[in-house]
């Protein structure tokens, strides 16, 4: 095997960041948020599309819409785009309710929505189905390394996507709770944690196009990184979210020898409250 201490010289994995958006909402706000109209420009979700969705799916979808609003390519064709969703411990409240139902009332009480709506692929599939994106869609992570796994898989999918669909981009959605929901034995939630969503819209880019003044994301060896003090591989979404909001160039460790480096664009964070009008542009 290769004995090189870092990535090979010809290693290539680079994406331009066309848009970046963050949103967050408390658990108590999410049900109302799910019922709102989900649309931006010509892109809209079918009515009641999110009625069975997990909380992280709702937040993830809202962050996609926010990213659409700041996309550098106005009215772009997203039909061949890929979706990767990196979630952390999604589906917990629904899982608890389902298991209580299974225990108390038997299998008849198990909702069939638990599999399609509360699995690791659910956020990515909802985005693909909802917005009509026909590129690859898959979920990533599930645990505390979700953010770094999502970044890694997005950047390494890029070279393949650049060949199969040269105009396609990658929607990387990261979601997670600041604190996990805490539930009573009857399944009622007794706290009101904040759920965060971050969407990076990535354009696969040839490695020779690297420009450290532009919003980009790439994998590099630790020794080639501009910054020191890398975020660990189990970095919580909250930390990455705050760094990107502050436009801080950030590196996230992938292994002992390589990191993901993110040079973020300017973004406008969105904190949702129910009944708030959130979108500045609607379809004519």
């Amino acid at each position, binding site marked *: 095997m290769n004995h090189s201490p870092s990535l090979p010289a010809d290693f290539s994995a680079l994406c331009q960041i066309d848009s970046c958006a963050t949103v967050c909402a408390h658990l108590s706000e999410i049900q109302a948020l799910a019922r709102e109209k989900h649309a931006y420009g010509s892109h809209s979700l079918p009515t009641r599309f999110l009625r069975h969705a997990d909380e992280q799916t709702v937040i993830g979808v809202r962050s996609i819409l926010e990213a659409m609003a700041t996309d550098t390519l106005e009215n772009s064709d997203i039909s061949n785009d890929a979706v990767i969703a990196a979630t952390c411990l999604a589906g917990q409240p629904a899982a608890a309710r389902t298991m209580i139902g299974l225990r108390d009332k038997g299998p008849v009480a198990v909702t069939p929505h638990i599999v399609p709506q509360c699995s690791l692929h659910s956020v990515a599939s909802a985005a693909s189905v909802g917005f009509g994106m026909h590129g690859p869609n898959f979920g990533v992570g599930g645990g505390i390394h979700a953010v770094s796994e999502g970044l890694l898989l997005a950047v390494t999918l890029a070279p393949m996507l650049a060949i199969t669909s040269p105009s396609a981009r990658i929607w990387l959605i990261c979601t997670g709770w600041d604190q996990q929901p805490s539930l009573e034995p009857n399944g009622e939630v007794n706290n009101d944690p904040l759920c965060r969503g971050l969407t990076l819209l990535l354009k696969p880019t040839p490695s020779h196009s690297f420009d450290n003044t532009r919003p980009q994301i790439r994998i590099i060896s630790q020794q080639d990184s501009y910054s020191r003090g890398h975020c660990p591989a189990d970095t919580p979404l909250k930390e990455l979210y705050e760094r990107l909001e502050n436009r801080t160039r950030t590196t996230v460790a*992938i292994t002992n020898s390589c990191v993901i480096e993110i040079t973020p664009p300017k973004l406008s964070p969105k904190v949702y409250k129910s009944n708030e009008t959130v979108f500045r542009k609607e379809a004519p």
Partner: protein
Amino acid sequence: MVSKSSQIVITGIGATTPLGNSFDAIGDALQAGRSGIDWCDIGTFSRQQQHVVAQVQSVNLTMENAVVSPSWRIDKSSRLEQFAIVPAAHALADAGIQPSSCTFEQKNRIGFIAGIGAEQLKDWERDFLDGGHDVFHAKRQPSLVHRAAQILDIHGPAATVAAACASSGYAIALGKTWLETGLIDACVVGGCDVLSPTALAAFHNLRALSRRDDNPEKASRPFDQDRDGFVMGEGGVFFVLERSDSALSRQSKIYGVLAGVGMSSDATHMVTPCSDPVQASRAITEALADARLSPADVDYINAHAASTPVGDAAEAGAIRDAFGAAAMKIPTSSTKSMSGHLISGAAAFEALACLVAIQRNIIPPTINLDTPDEDCLLRHVPHHSISLPVRVTASNSFGFGGSNLCLILKEAA
């Protein structure tokens, strides 16, 4: 990017499945058309005491040189952990990679991608049914792939991916991209899943499972006009992928070449397969293009066909669309008729079935295919395996959420 002349090859296989726990044992079962489906007791809270499922009968670290951390106890581990760690350890040993004798840098260049669709749900359920409260107060901990990497002593990048029933196929496809970009030198890829009361109930309530309770071995009948749903299975299958130059320099045994991958999404429904074959067909076409092969080059198609009325017909349409005139000439079968549906592990199991076909020059059959559905016209291989030269295979996988995948596996030169 790594040199285009270097191919991605499979140098190690590990499996824990209802049809056996080794490449040879599974190959024997597939060649004989033997079913792994039976009545099984899957524990408390089931719809009934006995279910028709494809269950793993035993799981043990049997392969010589398969090494795990001494602190890992198989008897203290969940079934999901066992189905990930044991076959992954076997795959590494089969590839002749012993992490304990690798340098620090070499360990950093062995990656791990596991296709596991609902790990946390399965963990919470297991704990809850044992009287625990993890689902009420979820613990933030590394996911199984990271724990497994530690137990196997490999320290390259690791990730869990999920595309429902195509999960392990996505893991294989993404492992190929990691090797092609030069990120790593070897990658453990595959997936696993376990039978669970919640999943059985959910799929039953979705009316996705077969309700033929009278004769378990007859329940899974892909492409048959009397099919009525799939049979859930469990197990784990993992491979070691390497670049061919690296494998040849180590003088590794090469089971086959991962020549092409194609991925697409229907983007029509969260559950129901799309009746329009265009996107499923696109995944197949992209895989063939990635492999630089034409439809007529393919000697065997391992269909996803889970035995559902809608899904099998949709896939037959996609195969006819992608392969054109060749579709009626290429032998096609669904090994789920024997293995059941391993859910997250299904695509990896079926990639293994393709390697069996290549190694043995046989086409595994679709057992129980008594009367092919006229909506599923293909060149079927019913009941019994047949002997034919097999150099190139295509393996389809489709999942909830409209995820489509095709892997092209071919004979090593």
